[in-house]
């Protein structure tokens, strides 16, 4: 199956050898083992990206490559107490909660919703036993679009994740909240959350992914989520990442969107030493809208990277990408957006903006918005800004009697607010707003 082995990956690499346990596992369905093998093959073909790779030229993953690779193979015996979780965001407002500890489902900490006709919300492992055909049909069907070694690793090694299926015409009223905890007890502890979200025609779902840490070891979480949206479906997705600043985080988000559907995907990157989101959206039916919306707040030496590829494969679609970053200290924000408009995708309306606010002279933003258009009747715009805070506006506010810190915070909050305001779900938006406000306050208290 594997053809060539790049030099970086040796035959004795623990990332390859520890795969045996899946082969030995009798409970592993054959089709699933095959999917895992294809992931492993992809990883060994592509290896880890380097700065020479155009898609990774601004982000060096060497610190991740150098970590000891220690997959967490079972649910830790010593689970966090429910009281430990209270500090995490969005918990109070979530009636439906799926908790994953180091990549494993923790039923005792989770709250699954009452059964609803046409709706299945559970962990992926459970779903594989309940609806194997559906999973065989969808799993890893989107995540193969790019040659990404990290996604390959996830496909080979994932333990568990979220599974949601909403059948045609059904609507899930409460947001589904998935909390991914890295216990962070050991350097190199690695988890591969794997989520599969299937929302059929005219169905509706709000889904929240929350990545957090309990300890402060240099752990690695490598998540992949696949979204299938049927015709006229409506999905709002929020990915919230506030892992420990020693942790590393890579995520792949793959979506396939049907005609007339609406897809909002928000990404908030606050934590991790290095975080990277690979967002891939394929707009497959006419008349749909996809909004990719993100905010990154970084300080110290953090790096937050968002890398997008949006493919317009049908006419009359709208895709909007908005990413704002507030960067302090020596931190760095990376935005790399590519919109590809196929020849058939006439009347495309694509928009892409990336704005960066630098709070210190040593903070840096790399931005690379790209348009690639093969249709002739389209509306495409892109823009990028990198700048410091508007001193005149600050002066204006101070002249009206506001202290300097409040004036600065107000402007930063307004800048972040452009992104937060696009969140559709009222309760989530309000909590998010509070989180960002608190974070900015904390930032100012320390500077």
């Amino acid at each position, binding site marked *: 199956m594997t053809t060539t082995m790049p030099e970086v990956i040796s035959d004795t690499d623990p990332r390859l050898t520890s795969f045996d346990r899946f082969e030995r596992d009798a409970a592993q369905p054959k089709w699933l083992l095959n999917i895992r093998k294809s992931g492993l093959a992809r990883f060994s073909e592509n290896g880890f990206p380097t700065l020479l790779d155009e898609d990774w030229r601004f982000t060096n993953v060497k610190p991740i490559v150098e970590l000891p690779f220690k997959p967490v193979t079972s649910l830790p015996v010593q689970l966090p107490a429910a009281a430990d979780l209270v500090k995490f965001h969005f918990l109070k407002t979530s009636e439906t909660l799926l908790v994953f500890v180091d990549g494993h489902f923790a039923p005792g900490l989770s709250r699954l919703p009452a059964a609803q006709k046409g709706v299945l919300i559970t962990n992926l492992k459970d779903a594989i036993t309940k609806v194997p055909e559906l999973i065989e049909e969808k799993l890893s069907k989107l995540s193969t679009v790019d040659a990404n070694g990290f996604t390959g690793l996830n496909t080979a090694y994932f333990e568990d994740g979220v599974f949601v299926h909403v059948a045609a015409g059904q609507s899930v009223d409460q947001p589904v909240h998935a909390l991914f905890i890295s216990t962070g007890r050991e350097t190199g502890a690695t988890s591969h959350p794997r989520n599969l979200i299937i929302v059929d025609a*005219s169905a509706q779902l709000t889904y929240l992914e929350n990545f957090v840490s309990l300890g402060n070891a240099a752990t690695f979480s490598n998540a992949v989520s696949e979204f299938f949206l049927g015709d006229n479906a409506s999905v709002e997705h929020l990915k919230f990442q506030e892992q420990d600043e020693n942790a590393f985080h890579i995520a792949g988000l793959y979506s396939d969107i049907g005609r007339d559907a609406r897809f909002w995907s928000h990404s908030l990157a606050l934590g991790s030493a290095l975080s990277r989101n690979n967002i891939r959206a394929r707009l497959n039916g006419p008349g749909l*809208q996809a909004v990719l919306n993100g905010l990154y707040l970084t300080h110290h030496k953090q790096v937050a990277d968002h890398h997008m590829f949006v493919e317009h494969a049908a006419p009359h679609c709208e895709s909007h990408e908005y990413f704002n970053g507030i960067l302090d200290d020596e931190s760095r924000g990376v935005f790399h957006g590519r919109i590809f408009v196929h020849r058939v995708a006439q009347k495309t309306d694509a928009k892409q903006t990336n704005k960066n606010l630098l709070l210190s002279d040593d903070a840096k933003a790399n931005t690379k918005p790209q348009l690639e258009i093969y249709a002739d009747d389209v509306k495409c715009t892109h823009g990028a800004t990198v700048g410091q805070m508007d001193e005149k506006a600050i002066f204006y506010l101070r002249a009206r009697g506001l202290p300097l810190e409040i004036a600065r915070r107000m402007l930063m909050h307004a800048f972040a607010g452009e992104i937060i305001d696009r969140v559709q779900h009222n309760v989530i938006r309000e909590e998010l707003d509070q989180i960002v406000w608190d974070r900015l306050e904390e930032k100012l208290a320390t500077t």
Partner: protein
Amino acid sequence: MSKPLLEIKNLHAGVEGRKILNGLSLEMNAGEVHAIMGPNGSGKSTLASILAGREDYEITDGQVIYQGEDLLEMAPEERAHKGVFLAFQYPIEIPGVNSTYFLKAALNEKRKANGQPELDAMEFLTLVKEKMKVVELPEDFLKRPVNAGFSGGEKKRNEIFQMAVLEPTLAILDETDSGLDIDALRIVAEGVNRLKTANNAQLVITHYQRLLNYIVPDQVHVLSNGRIIKTGGKELALELEEKGYDWITKGDAVAA
């Protein structure tokens, strides 16, 4: 019985040599709501475009009589002046053109054509504010350019808002429900229902059966291969929801 408001007789039409409508016939009276359903590519949107006067289509046979006149002979704006309104499947953005200005121009052109005095800015604003309630639109809509930067749902609501202002005699709603969440669908459907009178008619084209939970048609027509193959009451829509289109379209193939 009085004459029908709209009579489509044996309409054949196509584009670039490809036939889309194959002998479509339909009659509508004032005060009626008709729904047209059908699988992808059956000709639903083509019918809407032809009725509104889009010139991309070649009409090879048949007739469309509207209020006793030959509709196909009229320019699009003339049809508009005579009360034909199309709610577009994909409402067009017109950047730089203020919504109020646009709608006022449209309404006054219609009034001029019908020998009515034009409305001044004050009269128009009063009217518009009244009509905005029909679809629960915020007032800042009026200051924005036509459809530019609107979300999909806002565009669809804006279509119904324009319909409320222009008070058409024949309203054709082309997939107005597509791309709407349940809440937005409810608002749009209620707006449409409120605009129904004994003197106008509504032709509702839809891809998703769920719309007919909110707008109750007098007749439901199933369009397949460019002609109506089955007509029934609202219960037909329910039947379609359960069984899909195959059971009728198969029959159509046999009959053909």
